[in-house]
């Protein structure tokens, strides 16, 4: 089946089998190996990317379901040569050891900060609760995200709002 997916602002058209998972489409078809893959049960969250502006586990989405939709991966996080504050935070606070969970953690962190410029430690822990890190014990990941919040990482709320306009039919209607 022929699909066209916009990834980090660029359109890609490929012929894929319906059973191809989005995570494998990104990694194997597009060579975007920043998105990792770590389980068969949708539990670990290392495959987290944005689908139409919302973080999802890409191992549990079919590539064909992303046809005509927009994906953002860790490769789309930096602005040219300038790292996103979230990336800077992970460097500054040693938010990673092996780095396996890091891309997914950063995608969730970016989304959280776009929606809440000043999240509490509890908010951060809740946001990443579907993602596993085998190395850091989460302390430094939480610190990294706080660092990003305190260093201008939450300032991009204005464009985030434009991104997250509710799709038609998604808003709450009160009779």
């Amino acid at each position, binding site marked *: 089946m022929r699909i066209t997916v916009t990834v980090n602002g660029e359109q890609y058209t490929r012929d894929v089998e*319906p059973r191809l*998972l989005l995570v494998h489409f990104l990694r194997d078809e597009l060579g975007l190996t920043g998105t990792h893959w770590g389980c*068969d*049960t*949708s539990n670990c969250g290392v495959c987290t990317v944005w689908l139409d502006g919302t973080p*999802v586990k890409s191992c*549990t989405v079919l590539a064909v379901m992303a046809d005509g939709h927009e994906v953002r991966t860790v490769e789309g996080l930096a602005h040219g040569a300038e790292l996103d504050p979230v990336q800077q935070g992970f460097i500054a606070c040693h938010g990673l050891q092996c780095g396996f969970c890091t891309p997914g953690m950063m995608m969730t962190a970016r989304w959280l900060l776009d929606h809440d410029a000043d999240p509490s430690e509890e908010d951060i822990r809740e946001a990443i609760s579907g993602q596993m890190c085998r190395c850091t014990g989460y302390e430094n990941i939480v610190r990294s995200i706080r660092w990003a919040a305190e260093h201008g990482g939450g300032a991009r709320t204005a464009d985030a709002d434009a991104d997250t306009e509710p799709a038609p039919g998604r808003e709450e209607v009160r009779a």
Partner: protein
Amino acid sequence: MQVPAAFQYERATSLEQAIELLTRYGPEARVVAGGHSLLPMMKLRLAQPEALIDINGLGELAMIRVDGHDLAVGAMVRHAELLASPVVGEHFPILRDAERVIADPLVRNRGTVGGSLCQADPSEDLSAAFSALRATLVAQGPGGRRTIGIREFFLGPYETALNEAELLVEIRVPIRSHASAYRKVERRVGDWAVVAAGAVLEISDGVITEAGIGLTAVGARRFVAEQAEDFLRGGRPDDEGFTEAGRIAAQECRPTADQRGPVDYKRHLAGELTTRALRAAAARAQGQEA
């Protein structure tokens, strides 16, 4: 690398077309909503549908709205949307309580309310919560629309009253004066329940006029504790009654031992969580947040 077995994929552009596709492909076709139950099962080869009908494009099924005296929740409403909905939080705290502890934020971004109910997993949280609320389900198939009381919907583990080529369209719950709460014990954040209990109380002049008790993961028939509900009706909303209702609920469920715990532990939890959910609901009825 675990990948699903091959299948045909079709994207439905309307409800009618989804039903037509289901009819055309026959019993080996399945709809896919959030895919967060179906795709893991397909990866593990516990399910091998020959065709998937994708209903993610059906915006008409993605609405939460107040319709007359009912709250109507479309089958394609995502968990995260139900959790964030102010009207749900105001009238149905049991749903907000339950959504907070279903899976994790990422799964909730994609998994749907309808998919949860149609999956009919014996540990599903929303099945217990909507059963306590006595929700009505609206289904649509080749023969048109019909409504099914949720207590007639669950036929057994992974088995519902939906006919072939029939879709769940909407879940309806009357908005009335009642109090509710949901309490769950899980092994870790984001896990399925060891046991969870939901309570719904209608209280008039200090007397319980109607009670709903939903239980999940403990083999309660159709996710409810009917004898405990019967016991509560007509009684006073006090601690003694809630403790007794918990004891009755614990007796009427049929837990099985598994990696989440032995039978007597689960039975104990069923009773205790029922009592706590009732207490929390009653406290809310008196305007105290619990």
